[in-house]
């Protein structure tokens, strides 16, 4: 009935059947969808407006899949891809800000952060991302859990369902990953923050 929706649904179905290639199709769709959603909001409404990335992911979900009874498995595929898409968008964004800050000649385009601190949010995000990647190399499930919660805005329980682990396990993993990431990022700092 609805083409974009059909696309996404079709890809999700293919993924459920084990079609690995389908994953490659989903990511760019979600990437564009999210970017566009954000762009639409940022241009239509006040450019100073703040967007919650995770809220955006959920909005994209509703727009693309609606209320049709999706299985948890396909929701899982969706959110995993959406988390990754959102991660890329945020990282690109942070990198650009980072570059702009260094480049004094260029006017800042859309920086909204008032903090002049060296470790402003964009640098923090890049650091966090690096740490998550490092975690992924050691323990992929925990890194995925972090991505689902952090980039896709899922609750621990939702993420647990998607990852196929128990709620308790997910909580335990989260506690560890959260602490681990903090220690990892701040270990060169000399001072622990937080």
């Amino acid at each position: 009935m609805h083409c974009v929706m059909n696309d996404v649904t079709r890809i999700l179905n293919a993924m459920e059947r084990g079609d690995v290639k389908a994953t490659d199709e989903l990511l760019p769709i979600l990437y564009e969808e999210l970017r566009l959603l954000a762009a639409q909001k940022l241009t239509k409404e006040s450019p100073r407006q703040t967007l919650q990335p995770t809220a955006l992911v959920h909005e994209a979900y509703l727009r693309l899949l609606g209320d049709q009874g999706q299985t948890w498995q396909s929701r899982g595929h969706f959110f995993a891809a959406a988390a990754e898409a959102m991660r890329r968008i945020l990282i690109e964004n942070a990198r650009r800000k980072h570059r702009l800050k260094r480049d004094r000649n260029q006017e800042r385009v859309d920086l909204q952060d008032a903090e002049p601190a060296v470790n402003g949010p964009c640098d923090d995000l890049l650091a966090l991302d690096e740490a998550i990647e490092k975690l992924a190399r050691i323990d992929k499930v925990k890194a995925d859990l972090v991505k689902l919660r952090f980039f896709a805005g899922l609750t621990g329980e939702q993420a647990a369902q998607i990852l196929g682990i128990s709620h308790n396990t997910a909580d335990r993993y989260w506690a560890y990953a959260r602490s681990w990431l903090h220690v990892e990022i701040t270990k060169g700092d000399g001072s622990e923050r937080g």
Partner: protein
Amino acid sequence: MSDERAIDEEAVFSAAIAIDEAGKQLAYLRQACGGDTALLARVEALLRVHASKTSFIERVADSLQLTIDVPLMVEGPGTVIDRYKLLEKIGEGGMAVVYMAEQQEPIHRKVALKIIKLGMDTRQVIARFEAERQALALMDHPSIAKVLDAGATETGRPYFVMELVTGVSITEYCDKNNLSTKDRLALFLQVCHAVQHAHQKGIIHRDLKPSNVMVTHHDGQPIPKVIDFGIAKATNQRLTEKTLFTRYAHIIGTPAYMSPEQAELSDLDVDTRSDIYSLGVLLYELLTGTTPFSEEDLRKAGYIEMQRVIREEEPAKPSTRLSSLGETLTDVAKRRSSTPDLLRKAIRGELDWIVMKALEKDRTRRYDSSSALLADVKRYLDREPVLAGPPTAWYRTRKFVQRHGALVTVVVFVAATVVVGLGISMALYLRAERARDGEAVARAETQAVTDFLTKDLLASVYPEKARNQEVTVRYILESAARDLDEKFANSPLAEAQVRETLGRTYQKMGDYEAAKPHLERAWEIRREQFGEEHPATLASLNLLGMLYSNWGRYEQAEPLLARALDLRRRVLGEEHPDTLESMSDLAWQYMCEARFEEGMVLATRALERGRRVLGEEDPIVLRAMNALAAGYVTVMRYAEAQSLAGQGYEISRRVLGEEHETTLLLANVLAWACESGGRPDAAAELAARTVEIGRRIVGEEHLITIWAMSNLGAAYLKQGRREEAAPLLTRAFELAAQVGGPDHAGTVLFGLRLAILYRVQERWAEHEALLIQLAEASRRTHGEEHPQTGYIKYWLQMRIEQLTSVYREQEKSGDSQGAATTFGRLEELRRAYTGDSETQKSKVEGPR
């Protein structure tokens, strides 16, 4: 850090956080780490983070907000982009900004430069533009603004260079200059021309809308210019490219002008007919000042709902839309140098059809080219029959009449039906004649009728004949009917045929008096020619009976109908369709006389036989169902009424279609049965649908639509939605009185519903006056014993009781003046109750 250690570390950490007490936790850590101080330090660091509310991740999450790469528009007047220098901004939309710019070389000229706002893949946009560039270059039309160039700005946004058009959008131009509908159509024709030209070169516009059709002046003449050809396609991406950008770009654009297949978003499927649709929307807007679906509603509806509306919902016809504009209509009409009535009249019919054909959901049913649309609009302007709409004989005849310059009145329509009616009945009759008397006689009869049609009927409206006379149906019919017996001296059967048709037409117009002599004479001729019991004679007899029945002259109707049934039974047999028709008609007659027992027995029999002999799907059977179901409602057997009308409705909808008259009649009876039988929700749903279809198919001033409106109002009233019920009930009553007359059974029924609304709203003066009026009307139409009169008397009684206690109160409290007034009102109500209001009766116009 090795994997093994990480696991150890995690195990110790997880175990430690499960221990609440700090001392025990520390003891556990010492024991678990043994002598590994590095591990101990690390787990302790992790635990410290764990204990704090905000770790690094929460901090980032809190500060995280999304800004996205939407480069600011840095271009402005003075900026040089490639060979172009921006001069001033001349337009801005959701997607793009347009500048007037100066081109330096190779030629010095002013152009329009359009910069696309949103970030999109500039390279692809330009590549797509290049791909179509040659085709675009082939376009050469005064009403097409050329697209000259495309490129990328420094900030990487695509831009397009076009011929500079100074002017305003076509809708704005028309409104500003109060252009009449005719002038608007003339402009629209030029737009069609331009689009046709592009289509011939293989270019589809894809984004036709008023802001893309500018009007400029050339030698004092307005010239529409279609801009942006090729741009929609260039900024469009294909589905196969797996990006959603386009789809949103479109939606960010203009959903109101988007064709269903574009709403489908499968770009592969867009062809020239999508432009036809958009032209249809444009025409709709030029005529009515609104788009078929409001832009605002579409946006509000959200993405998926919006697509559904565009793909599935049937918009209101332009004339219907005008009617629903309310107060705005005056302004809309003024902008078209017209009045609300004239404007509606001008648009109703052909222009409705043309627009609706362009707006067909299924593009194979649209005009297949812009030139076909153009030709039809031109036909309308030249007063030739248009292709759109029902291409029936009566419609063409009307056009023929119109072209010959006669004063055109809506009633001329009916005149045309005479011609068609004759045509059909003649064909049937001649078939019978041929079998009886052979070719020669048949040919003579045909000739007589043809002469009559062309020399008398149609000739009567030729200007030279109708000089200075207002041409009305009556005039046409009268001049046609003059000296009929002389004209047909040698072919009496043809005379009978013509008279029967004239009689039917008068009857349809509600002029029973005028119909009578023709139908009587037709019967007489057939009796003389065929004999008393010939099927054709009996058909005449039945028709005459139905005339009296519809006329309300029940004493005369009943014996004729009974005799027709009797003879048909004997001559044709119990199960002949004619016999069954007679049964149905007589049953209806009995119901009208409140002889429900007999009526229902007969209707039931007609129904049973009809079902068996003709099958359930035969129109005669459906009419019998309708009669019987209506009877059931009148005697309050609502469950049976609902079941029967429901059945009939379903069959009729399936066999004859949802928009067929019989289906609509059954829908009304069904809604009535539901409303009376305690199912107001079902009634409201069905009635709302019937109102919608009725307005679209037969117009608001048709009893079918009026009935549905009243049903809807009554259902709302039962649902407690008084505010919504009031306008419907009021309008239905007014229209019924206007269309059917004050004594019409429908007027009485709809009036009673309105009276009940007044009661609920405690508008007592209106309540009483209406009840009194209705009691008289119902007595005249139905008689004292009819349930309808009974219901009205019931409500009179209720009010009388109420007022009586008011009267007593007033007397008790010494308010003698108030008591006197109340007494007067009571007297009036009592008179209405007993029917003792001879004085009143003579004041009201009696039946015609």
